[in-house]
């Protein structure tokens, strides 16, 4: 079942949570809503679920497979929702939790035997066989989330919505559940939308990534595209590590003026080559620090004429060949870079940026 949300605008008093967006989710796709806190991704998910409604005067609609469900209550939309903190029913055991959706049906309530069969099948599918009699407080975080998944799937929803489903779990459990979700998608092809602030998760799991910031959608595309071809400075900075240059001009690499020209250049650490020999498009840099431990080597350099810092990522072999030392003058060439016009006034910096050294 496809989802099409149009003209979605949501405000809470004066606070604008969503600024007039449109989103299409194809049937069977696994889509990630990725962004920092406050970007509006959870609000958008809840509007799809029917737990929030778009502003009445905005004319926003949510359509499932062409049918307008904007005014349909959540229980009738055919969605399964999984919460970050599980939201299991504490006073019911695992079996009753999973069976809840089936037992509250007023029409078409399945007979007891069938409910039991379905619940047990679901518990096996989430790899919790035989734990039906346990209570939520007797389970680990990962187990609780699996019960929450089973519960959401019990009613055979057409759309699965997950709100930071693995955020409250530790790293190892998170990896297991991610693998489970991928596996599940491959077998079932259920239209799934999940919210996350973890870019690794989004890039690993999703067919399409929707990058959101500040109540707006910045970019939509497959993981490779959002990573390799970011559409805006925000996306560039949010996904992966990036160097940001304002004073260094790549149009005139050998003649740096050190004056800003209203543009911002982004280049990823792994796209910078260092060498002892200059080339026509290389920039002079001074080596400041070398971090050699780990699978990759990192070299911190300072652009000679402008004082801006760069983080460079090199393979260990390249490092061995180059043998950079502190204070050494080398030449940096940029394999890929992107230049944007005047930078936005408030660009968030998730990557820590060292400040240029004070003039000595």
């Amino acid at each position, binding site marked *: 079942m496809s989802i099409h949300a149009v003209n979605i605008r949501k405000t809470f008093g004066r606070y604008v949570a969503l600024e007039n967006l449109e989103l299409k989710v194809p049937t069977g796709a696994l889509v990630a809503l990725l962004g920092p806190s406050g970007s509006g991704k959870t609000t958008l998910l809840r509007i799809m*679920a*029917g*737990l929030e409604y778009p502003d009445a005067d905005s004319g926003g609609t949510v359509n499932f497979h062409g049918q307008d469900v904007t005014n349909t*209550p*959540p*229980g*009738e939309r055919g*969605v*399964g*929702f999984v*919460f970050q*903190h599980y*939201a*299991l*029913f*504490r*006073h019911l055991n695992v079996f009753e939790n999973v069976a*809840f*959706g089936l037992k*509250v*049906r*007023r029409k078409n309530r399945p007979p007891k035997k069938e409910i039991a069969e379905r619940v047990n099948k679901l518990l096996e599918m989430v790899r919790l066989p035989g734990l039906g009699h346990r209570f939520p*407080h*007797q*389970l*680990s975080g990962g187990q609780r989330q699996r019960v929450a998944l089973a*519960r*959401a799937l*019990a*009613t055979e929803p057409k759309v699965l919505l997950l709100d930071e489903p693995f955020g409250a779990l530790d790293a190892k459990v998170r990896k297991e559940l991610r693998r489970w979700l991928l596996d599940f998608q491959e077998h079932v092809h259920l239209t799934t939308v999940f919210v996350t602030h973890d870019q690794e998760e989004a890039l690993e799991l999703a067919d399409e990534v929707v990058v959101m910031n500040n109540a707006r959608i910045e970019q939509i595309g497959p993981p490779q595209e959002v990573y390799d071809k970011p559409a805006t400075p925000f996306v560039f900075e949010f996904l992966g590590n990036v160097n940001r240059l304002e004073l260094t001009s790549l149009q005139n690499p050998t003649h740096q003026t050190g004056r800003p020209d209203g543009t911002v250049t982004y280049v990823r650490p792994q796209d910078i080559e260092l060498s002892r020999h200059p080339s026509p498009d290389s920039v002079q840099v001074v080596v400041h620090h070398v971090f050699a431990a780990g699978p990759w080597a990192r070299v911190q350099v300072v652009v000679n004429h402008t004082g801006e810092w760069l983080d460079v990522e090199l393979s260990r072999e390249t490092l061995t060949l180059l043998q950079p030392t502190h204070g050494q003058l080398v030449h940096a060439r940029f394999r890929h870079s992107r230049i944007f016009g005047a930078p936005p006034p408030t660009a968030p910096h998730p990557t820590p940026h060292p400040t240029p050294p004070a003039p000595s």
Partner: protein
Amino acid sequence: MASTGTTLLNRGRTAAVVRDATTESGWVRALLITVALTFLALFLFVPLVSVFVEAFRNGIHAYLHAISTPDAWAAIKLTLLVAAIAVPLNTVFGVAAAWSIAKYQFPGRSLLLTLVDLPFAISPVISGLIYVLVFGLQGWFGQWLDDHDIKIIFAVPGIVLATIFVTFPFVARELIPLMETQGNDAEYAALTLGANGWQTFWRVTLPNIKWGLFYGVILCNARAMGEFGAVSVVSGHIRGLTNTLPLHIETLYNDYNLQGSFACASLLVMLALVTLALKTFIEWRHARNHAAEADSH
């Protein structure tokens, strides 16, 4: 167990007093406990014990006689009747008020919250007086009620109303913080699974608040049965008709029937003890459930 503090004084005293830095020294603890126990003894234990001593002063037959006179019996029945009406009503009001305050944002929410606490802030005498002012013969509806021969003040309905007013906050105040802490996620989950409002309330909200609800009901009941000030203003003290148990006790006392009044008072003390026992039981059960849940983290 880690001892985080040692008092090794600079002057090189080698005898180190190894003590946990976060507790008081032995004698401070002893002093505080003594003060607390003395206070409790003077203001709580001694008066309670004296009630029973006085009640049984003339022997058990006199005691049994005192609590079974027609007036005493009528007072007991009236007290039970008032509680049987006031407590269920306040439970329903309390749950409804707590639900709206904890789960929703709406204009007037803070006002409602303040109104819930109002009966606690007003002196019980005033609580009774306001009903006299509204329903009494010189009151707003006084003439209309008299024309229709409906008695509220100086009759049972007035007592019930005053008791409802005074005991209203107990259930609501108990539930509001509880429901606010529990949040709305479980209810939202139930909605997405297809439950309607009533099913959500019955199957999800109510089981989550049951211990808090029980606690609030017990306190509400204790106050409803023991209320004096407001009921005194409204009741008219008509023996055998509009005397609740607390009022009957006062009547006996004013008649210099010390033994009788203490005998009836002992009934209220026993109610208080039962209330305390139930309260302790609930807290124990709640702590046990909490420990079980906390252990699993």
